[in-house]
């Protein structure tokens, strides 16, 4: 399919700025691989007394928006101090390019990650320590860690698993980690909203997408039902739930908060499964894991 790229994105992939490697680089940041489908090597020349970035060059393997994001990154950070550069977000990169298609936001995240890697390299941060901090791999297809996912959620105010895939690629291939991604999403969201607030339903009906239900679509749909229909309802009773996994028609959840200790769990579970079945149009087996 053809992507709708802005004029600026097109300009930057057709005429990328600052391609190559800085001689005697003071900082090198490398991210991605050919297997994943995109990779970026960023090299910086830095004035050691002022911490100012004197020059930045990039090499990118990837699609048009990956090349454009890399080119934009170098244009933005040249002349900045290291600290200023670290404040550049992936949203800033996308805005500089007059926007990126939602499905291509991961290209701007790659730019941001390469920059962080380069800064860590410049500061001589302990590599082993860094690895420890990188977290656990969640998406094995694209080697995305829980830390990266958490970061993408908080920095971009993401609220759905589909958005996380657009921003990090996690879950975009085999889809087997989508349940885990949802768990991370829920835990980040619950941290930012410690008590589930009773909230108004927005009365927009949830519509089952037409055509074949891939596992990905199914998980998106289930998540939407949980978010719009079920969590608000549980929230009134100060309860909550986490989506743990989905296998075929079996949906594994964990009731949390007051629901966890509630003696009326059976009727809660019956309510949840009937809501899910209504929208999915197929029987499901709901398992509450303690």
């Amino acid at each position, binding site marked *: *399919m053809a992507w709708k790229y802005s004029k600026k994105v097109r300009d930057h*992939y*057709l005429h*990328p700025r600052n*391609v190559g490697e800085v001689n005697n680089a003071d900082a090198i940041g*490398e991210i991605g691989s*050919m*297997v*994943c*489908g*995109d*990779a*970026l*090597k960023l090299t910086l020349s830095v004035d050691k007394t002022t911490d100012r970035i004197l020059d930045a060059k990039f*090499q*990118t*393997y*990837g*699609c*048009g928006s*990956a*090349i454009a994001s890399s080119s934009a990154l170098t244009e933005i950070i040249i002349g900045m101090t290291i600290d200023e550069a670290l404040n550049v977000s992936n949203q800033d990169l996308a805005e500089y390019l007059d926007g990126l298609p939602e*499905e291509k936001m991961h290209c701007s995240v790659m730019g941001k990650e390469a920059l962080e890697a380069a800064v860590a390299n410049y500061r001589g941060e302990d590599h082993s320590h860094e690895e420890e901090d990188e977290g656990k791999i969640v998406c094995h*297809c*694209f080697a995305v860690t829980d830390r990266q996912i958490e970061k993408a959620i908080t920095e971009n105010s993401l609220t759905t698993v589909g958005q996380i*895939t657009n921003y990090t*690629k996690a879950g*975009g*291939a*085999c889809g087997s980690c989508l349940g885990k991604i949802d768990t991370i999403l829920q835990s980040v969201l619950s941290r930012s909203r410690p008590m589930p607030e009773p909230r108004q339903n927005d009365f927009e009906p949830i519509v089952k997408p037409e055509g*074949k239900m*891939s596992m990905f679509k199914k998980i998106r749909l289930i998540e939407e039902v949980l978010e719009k229909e079920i969590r608000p309802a549980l929230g009134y009773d100060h309860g909550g739930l986490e989506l743990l996994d989905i296998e*075929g028609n079996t949906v594994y959840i964990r009731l949390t908060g007051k629901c966890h200790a509630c003696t009326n769990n059976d009727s809660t579970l019956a309510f949840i499964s009937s809501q899910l079945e209504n929208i999915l149009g197929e029987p499901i087996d709901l398992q509450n894991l303690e």
Partner: protein
Amino acid sequence: MTQPVIYLDNNATTRVAPEVFESMVPFLTDLYGNPSSMHDFGGNLQEYVEEARAQVAALIGAEDPSEIIFTSCGTEADNTAIASALRANPGKKHIITSKVEHPAVLNYFEYLENSGYEVTWLPVDGDGLLDADRVEAAIRDDTALCSLMWANNETGVIFPIDQIGERLKKHGVMFHTDAVQAVGKIPIDLSRTPVDMLSLSGHKFHAPKGIGALYVRRGTMFYPYLIGGHQERGRRSGTTPVPLIAAIGTAAKLAIASMESEATSVSALRDRLEEGIRATVPGIVFVGDRKNRLPNTANISFEYVEGEAILLMLSEENIAASSGSACSSDSLEPSHVLRAMGLPFELCHASIRFSLSRYTTVSDIDIAIEKLPGVIANLRNISPFTPPEMRG
């Protein structure tokens, strides 16, 4: 766009032949009747429909035009065939297909697998080939259907449908083939090849989009997919699209007339393109079997660069091609066909398909050969993986 496009994406769709367009015009203007009507103004149009049916039958060597059912597209033909075969074989819960099918078959089989059918997903070898022995070995007592494509849309690789058909016939297993990419490009003779059902699509051989056909061999149990009026002898309901049917008939007639000469002229251009690229671009891999393939398709992987970026750059040069790269689709996974062939991910991401037609000219090919090395060199200069000797 003022410059005419250099169109090398004919496996995606083709230009409507001028003769085909002309043949539609009467039915888009004066002869607008409905062939199902009692009055002559409409009813007389049925003869044009039957003429087109005979032309499509002739294109695939069907013994009787009544074996042709017009559909809206290849996907509808595929879905209809599969659904019918399963209904015709109640109680049988095993079905066979390959890992490299078009989504119209692949995703339907996935859906069936989720609804309780057991699916054998046949692998292909590194050249994209499938051995008839492998198909035979997969057959079970409860096999309801085997569905395999005649030629692959991404690589052009041709399956040995004759041999596979013989094996399946021997075991009495129903056989459907998605021949959407093969029909009109290579000779097909169903009077000799034992397939029970075959899908084809008009827009792949110079008819417009919106018309396809399903061949159902006489004597094959058949259940319609669309339930409604009595059109197509009750086998496919829906108002008869006379202009589109006239178009696919004309396109079939043209394909029969020119197939032999095109097989040589188009494959000569394809070979010219491949040789031209081989001579000017280092670090390339030809994908798919070199012998058993469609005359119009070339699939080439360019090391150290990514397919979508190549397509965007080619598009700037007004050249249209397609890619197996993940980035050029709405999924993040590269082509299932190339991965089933065991092609490394980095080569899947970098694969470009060039597909030609009777309207491709020597000049088109030469311009592509002229522009491509610059595009690849440009992207290789940007890529961090390019070895020094390939940098400009």
